[in-house]
């Protein structure tokens, strides 16, 4: 029979029964799509190769252990595994920043403690001051909700109890406070980034 005419589901069940060539057909059938999918997320050939390999190792183990539930969705299932592995890859990289040897070695790019330097601290305090000044410009009702929520870290339930308005009203005031703050930022042309 022509391998193209055999469905994924049939190939999977044949493979589970011990027919190894079925796996080869499945990989060849979907390799390009899966590879492109992974590459479109990680933009690195070697990482793509690794994730592709890990994806199929997981597929093989799941099928051999008999844990696969055939619902006619082989490719989406494989894609989902690849997607999760891509996320794992990014998470791992965030935890362990890779040393990028680009010629000029800067040890502080690896050993940074995350604290701001003197300039950063100065900019941060200026930003806090600017924001505070703009909050003062808000209408009293909106200002009190925003201060309670952001500066006093109160829940909307607590805010509604202390101001005597419903939670929805408090939410609405918060929303308008943020909208107005954005307008003020635009009006004063303030840059709020460090």
């Amino acid at each position: 029979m022509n391998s193209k005419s055999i469905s994924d589901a049939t190939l999977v069940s044949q493979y589970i029964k011990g027919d190894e060539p079925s796996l080869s057909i499945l990989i060849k059938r979907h390799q390009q799509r899966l590879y492109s999918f992974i590459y479109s997320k990680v933009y690195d050939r070697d990482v793509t190769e690794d994730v592709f390999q890990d994806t199929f190792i997981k597929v093989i183990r799941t099928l051999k252990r008999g844990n696969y539930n055939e619902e006619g969705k082989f490719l989406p299932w494989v894609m989902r595994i690849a997607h999760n592995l891509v996320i794992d890859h990014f998470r791992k990289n965030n935890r362990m920043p890779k040393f990028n040897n680009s010629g000029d070695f800067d040890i502080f790019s690896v050993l940074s403690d995350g604290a701001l330097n003197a300039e950063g601290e100065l900019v941060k305090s200026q930003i806090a001051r600017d924001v505070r000044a703009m909050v003062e410009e808000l209408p009293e009702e909106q200002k009190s909700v925003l201060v309670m929520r952001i500066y006093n870290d109160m829940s909307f339930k607590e805010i509604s109890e202390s101001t005597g308005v419903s939670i929805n009203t408090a939410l609405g005031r918060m929303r308008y406070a943020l909208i107005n703050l954005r307008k003020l930022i635009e009006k004063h042309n303030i840059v709020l980034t460090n």
Partner: protein
Amino acid sequence: MAKLYTEKPSNSNTFKPKTETIKFLLNYSKALNVSVYKGLKFESLNN
């Protein structure tokens, strides 16, 4: 007259895993053996 580029650039080889990767996967599949003992599943690589 404007040129017509009707032929698509061939990139069929660019988005494919290496042959070694495929080979590794097929060999891994052949080597992997799952045995069940008292309801527990054990994996072994017969390589």
